[in-house]
């Protein structure tokens, strides 16, 4: 008997599940990825690709990243290799827009497109789709730019301080969607999540130091199907997530008054265990630590920013080991 003759299900679940894993990771990384001083510091735009500089009104940002997978850490922290012959790459094209809504308030929106290229020893797949959308609201807890060239008393030590909140909308197609039974469209994690964020940074030219932290809570949701298959309905809630990113940067002033900034970063992310109908899933939850190096070029008019960064996962638990290369360009507008 040949089991394959008994069903008409022709789609390849392998790519779907891999995509879920990828999107899960990419969305995790979105929360901790903006680690490049965009050289527009002086009270704004320093730590995030979609945070407006202090006296600008709007900004758009387009970035493309490529993330390669190179094994994974088990729950005990042991590094294991991916199956021989496998090559797993995810590319993301993100569109972001930030807009000033008041003197000390700004909002932003970010939408990623996801492209997964999976190659195993026995098969390969190519998957493209929209990811989950993020919308943010930020308050700048300072009224004047805080970058200084020289420390002159306590006042000059005042840092830039931002408080923000981010809502993740499940606009991608998740494993709980009913439209994945004949396509490879899974592109989102399927959960609303609410994050509280904080950024603190200080620049005394040519040096900058910064920290960005966030704490996010996923909203519990009902699930009645997995990968297009009906299941007994249950409630699922992803674990709370905490991220922390430390950055240090050095800025060179170029002859045309443009700026080139190099940034070193060290980021950690931790997500608690998932709950099914209130019961903790001991096999879930993860943590990862990542180091990164980024360069950004800010034009002499400070209206164009070009960014390049490389991030390398250093250690973790229950998480893949990845390397990510990101390139981006931002344009800033003023009155």
């Amino acid at each position, binding site marked *: *008997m040949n*089991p*394959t003759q*008994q*069903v008409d*299900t022709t789609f*390849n*679940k*392998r790519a779907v*599940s*891999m995509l879920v*894993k990828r999107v899960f990771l990419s969305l995790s990384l979105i929360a901790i990825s903006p680690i490049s001083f965009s050289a527009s510091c002086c009270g704004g735009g320093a730590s995030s690709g979609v945070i407006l500089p202090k006296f600008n009104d*709007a900004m*758009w940002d387009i970035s493309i990243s490529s993330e390669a997978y190179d094994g*994974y850490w*088990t*729950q005990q922290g042991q590094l*294991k290799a991916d*199956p*021989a*012959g*496998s090559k797993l790459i995810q590319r993301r094209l993100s569109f972001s*827009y930030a807009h000033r809504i008041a003197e000390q308030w700004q909002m932003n929106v970010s*939408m990623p497109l996801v492209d997964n290229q999976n190659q*195993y*020893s*026995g098969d390969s797949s190519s998957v493209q789709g*929209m990811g989950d959308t993020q919308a943010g609201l930020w308050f700048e807890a300072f009224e004047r730019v805080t970058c200084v060239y020289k420390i002159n008393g306590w006042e000059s030590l005042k840092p830039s301080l931002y408080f923000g909140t981010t809502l993740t*909308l*499940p*606009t*991608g*197609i998740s494993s*709980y969607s*009913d*439209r994945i039974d004949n396509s490879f469209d899974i592109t*989102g994690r*399927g959960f609303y999540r609410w994050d509280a964020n904080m950024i603190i940074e200080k620049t005394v030219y040519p040096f900058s130091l910064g920290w960005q932290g966030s704490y996010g809570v996923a909203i519990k*949701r*009902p699930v*009645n199907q*997995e*990968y*297009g*298959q*009906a*299941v007994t*309905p249950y409630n699922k809630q992803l674990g709370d997530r905490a991220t922390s990113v430390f950055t240090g940067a050095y800025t060179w002033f170029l002859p045309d008054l443009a700026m080139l900034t190099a940034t070193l970063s060290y980021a950690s992310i931790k997500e608690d265990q998932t709950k*099914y109908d209130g*019961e*903790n*899933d*001991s*096999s*879930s939850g993860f943590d990862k630590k990542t180091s990164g190096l980024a360069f950004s070029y800010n034009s002499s008019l400070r209206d164009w920013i070009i960014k390049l960064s490389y991030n390398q996962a250093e250690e973790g638990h*229950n*998480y*893949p080991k990845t390397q990510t290369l990101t390139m981006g360009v931002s344009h800033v*507008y003023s*009155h």
Partner: protein
Amino acid sequence: MFTRIKLTTFILIGMFLLTGCQEDLFPSNDQLTSKSEAQVGALIDDLEFTLSTNINDEISSRLQPSNIDAVVLYFTMWCPVCDSHMSHIRSQFKNQYPNIEFMFVDYVSGSTTSSRGAQTSSGYSDFDVISDYDNALENYFSGTMASTIVIDKNFIVLMNEEFKTGSQLASILDNL
């Protein structure tokens, strides 16, 4: 400036609508009807498979011993979550349920050699791994990462869902 904002807003709204995001924006707990032929309660055929050791086998031979009440298939792609589940199955379920045949299904490697390599490098050489190189079991059960299938002595599917916490699997095995 205003035109620029309008254009950007239009683009963002357009992209948002193009995502077709309705299901996850408004999730439901309504009971749905399964589309899988190997759904819970279905009578399945005596499926053949190949172990990573290149040995051909079938469900019936696994269920044949009088002390065996069911076969459990766990679909793995050798990922972190899979590793957690497999470790849990090996260290707890295997000992707790000696009357159950547990097997892992490698549905991502294209050959028994590759399956064996992944099995060894992942530290599961002591476990039976099915090399589903032709995707036969994957297609039959609509299996994917962490899919867990329970088949009883009468070839009835008792479970075909994600592993989750393992409590559902334990509950089903307790009732055998």
